[in-house]
């Protein structure tokens, strides 16, 4: 807060009294908001910003013409859905009055408040909203680099990686061993690896019944653990083995040529290898100076303004959002709250104290859904869960409830992608 005041005063000081004395009505210059990243967080923020402040000049900067959504991409991997169902363009967002710049954000001058794109364009801004998502931390797992990902796909950014893993599973002989490595926290979509493990086990059980999935995990505890473990015991006793940290599950290195995973306790060679590697905020976060030593971006819990660079707001996977998990649901909810805060700040108000919801649905099979939900507020300088709210689906829920949750999961995806891209 203090920093912010100082930097504003710095700008004013350079201007002299003429500007300060200018009458309010001459505020012709439209406020300029630039948004980095056309994914769940960024596309939502840009659209919501334009809706709240139609007079604002809102520019969405995206490094892809087509966004490929990760939620439900685990169904694509097991052949239950096509990748095209995951793809979204920006036409409706442009129609809503947002200018879309199709180039990567390259550098940010936080004190001059100018963003420079890879194509050389410079975009001055009054406020910048960054939702650039994650990058794989290629230094995070010995042996795992970009070339290794062609042999041992991560499929943790949807697109060609998703179809690569699918083709490998399809090509595998019955009787093959599939091995998946799961990282320590934090990473994008905490329950995502376990949904993927479930769906791969379901695929093996129904299509390649002599095969098995081995999950090597760097943690002992994970999201919706009791629900997943009991579903696995009931549905996939012969097709899924999960090995946690204390049983030697942590993968120390990989050997891509032989599809080998090296753990403290031994070596596992796979027929199909899926490595979910350690991650960090996308590279632009470090370039902009908004990421800290952890690789993620500290923020104010009410406005999502960076703790490191005033005038820049960060949300979605790249941000340190306290108790909120890194999910598309969170990114969408945070973007709406952030846009409201930015609109309020730009019109001279004080941002209200927000409430946020997250719900992560996971599919154990295509018609067996479970969820974890939470309601959040700013408390003690971080985003905290409201006591007594949230939790996971009931442990004793009958099959029709699991089926209903699978339907609601699909409904959520339809609704959120329509709200953002439709």
């Amino acid at each position, binding site marked *: 807060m203090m920093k912010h005041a100082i930097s504003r005063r710095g700008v004013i000081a350079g201007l002299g009294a003429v500007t300060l004395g200018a009458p309010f009505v001459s505020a012709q210059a439209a406020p300029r908001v630039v948004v980095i990243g056309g994914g769940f967080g960024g596309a939502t923020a840009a659209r919501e910003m334009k809706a709240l402040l139609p007079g604002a000049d809102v520019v969405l900067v995206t490094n892809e013409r087509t966004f490929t959504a990760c939620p439900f991409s685990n169904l694509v991997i097991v052949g239950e859905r096509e990748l095209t169902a995951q793809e979204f363009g920006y036409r409706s967002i442009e129609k809503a009055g947002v200018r879309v710049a199709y180039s990567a954000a390259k550098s940010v001058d936080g004190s001059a408040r100018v963003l420079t794109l890879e194509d050389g364009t410079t975009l001055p801004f009054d406020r910048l909203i960054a939702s650039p998502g994650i990058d794989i931390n290629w230094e995070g797992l010995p042996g795992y680099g970009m070339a290794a990902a062609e042999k041992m796909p991560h499929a943790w950014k949807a697109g060609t990686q998703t179809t690569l893993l699918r083709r490998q599973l399809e090509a595998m002989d019955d009787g093959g061993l599939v091995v998946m490595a799961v990282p320590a926290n934090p990473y994008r979509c905490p329950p995502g690896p376990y949904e993927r493990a479930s769906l791969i086990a379901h695929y093996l059980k129904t299509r390649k019944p002599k095969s098995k999935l081995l999950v090597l995990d760097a943690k002992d505890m994970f999201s919706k653990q009791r629900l997943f473990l009991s579903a696995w015991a009931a549905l996939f006793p012969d097709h899924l083995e999960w090995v946690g940290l204390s049983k030697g599950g942590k993968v120390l290195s990989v050997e891509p040529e032989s599809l080998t995973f090296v753990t403290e306790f031994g070596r596992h060679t796979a027929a199909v290898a899926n490595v979910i590697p350690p991650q960090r905020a996308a590279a632009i976060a470090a370039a902009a100076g908004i990421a800290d030593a952890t690789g993620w971006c500290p923020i104010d819990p009410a406005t999502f303004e960076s703790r490191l660079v005033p005038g820049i707001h960060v949300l979605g996977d790249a941000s340190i959002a306290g108790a909120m998990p890194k999910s598309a649901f969170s990114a969408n909810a945070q973007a709406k709250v952030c846009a409201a805060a930015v609109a309020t700040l*730009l019109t*001279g108000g004080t941002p209200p104290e927000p409430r946020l919801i997250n719900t992560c649905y996971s599919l154990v099979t295509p018609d067996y859904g479970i969820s974890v939900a939470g309601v959040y507020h700013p408390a003690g300088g971080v985003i905290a869960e409201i006591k007594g709210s949230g939790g996971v689906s009931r442990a004793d829920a009958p099959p029709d409830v699991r089926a209903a949750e699978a339907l609601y999961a699909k409904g959520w995806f339809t609704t959120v992608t329509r709200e953002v891209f439709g």
Partner: protein
Amino acid sequence: MAGRALFVGLMLLASVTPGAHAATLELPPAGASSCGGCHAPPGVDTAVPTLHGKTAAEIVAQMQSFRSGAQPSTVMDRIAKGFTDPEIEAIAAWYARQK
């Protein structure tokens, strides 16, 4: 550049008179924008019921019975427990105004 600087100057002015300009901003009450992650306007192909067209009183009553458990639910009980009565009333009134 001058435009931006002008604007920053104005922001400062505006913040001296709180809410002077903010009056033109219509923000949803706290929490309401998150409901829209699952609840779509009518016409969207989803199993989640739409909230559009409900009266505020209906939404308040349902939220309260989700919270108490009187109305069984898959997820709404867990969400409703995160909101106080005044918060629910504000959200319900806002939804009732949506077209």
